[in-house]
């Protein structure tokens, strides 16, 4: 089991210098502009599309090998249970990462989705950890932002602003009022300033995961390019 929190303690001391270095180097979250391998598209959107197509292709092949397909809906409860186990796994949840926000994200090592990621990324445990952490950098930054006294104070001003005189605080303020109050209370400005700073901080804290993320994603892109053409069914599979 992975524990992000222990890493947090270990890396906290290096935070200030690492954050400064990261800001100076102008790193983005995942480095989409890194030089691509032959056949790998250079843009992030095209790379994402390539990875999704490859994962989908591998999942469909895997399901086909088990006599299953994604096509028929609605499915009988028994068929749905079988498909769910084939896609997402059975047995214990082997993969687990606890984020700094408190969420423990889990997944299975078996199943066709996990198998596809193992094939593409080479090490699904390392990929799972890196993906979960990097995917939630913004959530982590926003959680830190909400704990900041300046944000708490601005939120209190916002709450007073949206609460009509002699009335309880509304659960759902009118959207136009909420927008005006966000501006007038300074909440918009505080959020913009704090979120950018917290994002830089968490990117420095999770530098190892960001590096792993880039490395394994590059590997997956190369694998995706080299996948054999899907015109012939792979050996041992049956089409349904």
């Amino acid at each position, binding site marked *: 089991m992975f524990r992000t929190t222990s890493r947090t303690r270990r890396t906290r001391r290096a935070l200030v210098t690492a954050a400064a270095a990261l800001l100076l180097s102008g790193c983005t979250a995942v480095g989409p502009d890194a030089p691509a391998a032959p056949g790998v598209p250079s843009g992030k*959107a095209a790379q*994402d*599309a390539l990875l*999704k*197509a490859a*994962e*989908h292709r591998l*999942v469909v092949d895997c399901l086909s090998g088990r006599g299953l397909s*994604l096509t028929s*809906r609605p*499915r009988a409860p028994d068929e*749905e249970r079988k*498909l*769910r*186990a084939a*896609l*997402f*796994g*059975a*047995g*214990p*949840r082997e993969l687990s990462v606890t984020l700094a*926000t*408190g*969420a*423990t*994200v*889990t*997944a*299975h090592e078996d*199943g066709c*989705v*996990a198998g596809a990621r193992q094939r593409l990324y080479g090490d699904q445990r390392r990929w799972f950890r890196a*993906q*979960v952490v*990097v*995917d*939630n950098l*913004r*959530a982590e930054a*926003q*959680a830190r*932002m*909400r704990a900041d006294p300046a944000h708490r104070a601005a939120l209190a001003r916002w709450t007073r602003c949206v609460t009509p005189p002699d009335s309880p605080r509304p659960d*759902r303020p009118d*959207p136009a009022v909420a927008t005006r109050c966000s501006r007038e209370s300074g909440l918009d400005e505080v959020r913009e300033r704090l979120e950018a700073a917290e994002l830089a901080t968490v990117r420095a804290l999770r530098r190892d995961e960001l590096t792993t993320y880039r490395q394994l994603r590059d590997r997956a892109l190369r694998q995706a390019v080299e996948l054999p053409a899907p015109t012939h069914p792979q050996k041992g599979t049956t089409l349904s």
Partner: protein
Amino acid sequence: MKRLLVTTAAALFAATAGLALATSAGAAECPSGEFCVWQDSDFGGQRANWSGDDGWWESWISDTDSSWANHGISGPGIKDHVKVYESAWQGGGMTICLAPGQEVGYNGAANDRGDSHIWSMGC
């Protein structure tokens, strides 16, 4: 696009048939292709599930969410990640972003905080 189903039958069946607890075996009881939210931790209690976006969860599940599962199916051009927000219409900050196959049985920070979600190409 929004489709919301309340499912208690599955929980009832699990209780009466003595199936293994959700924590010990198998992917959570969330239909393939959908995003699911449960009122209780460890994928227990009433469940809401969606194949599309929902900018404002119905009152019985909003701010009572305790566990989550993304059973989206990836594919070319498919929005397969799910972002959960603490306010309606994707406002107030994102509490979690899940890729297909990822599940969260409990989250001390985001517990009882969700109000809306959106499917996206990535996080």
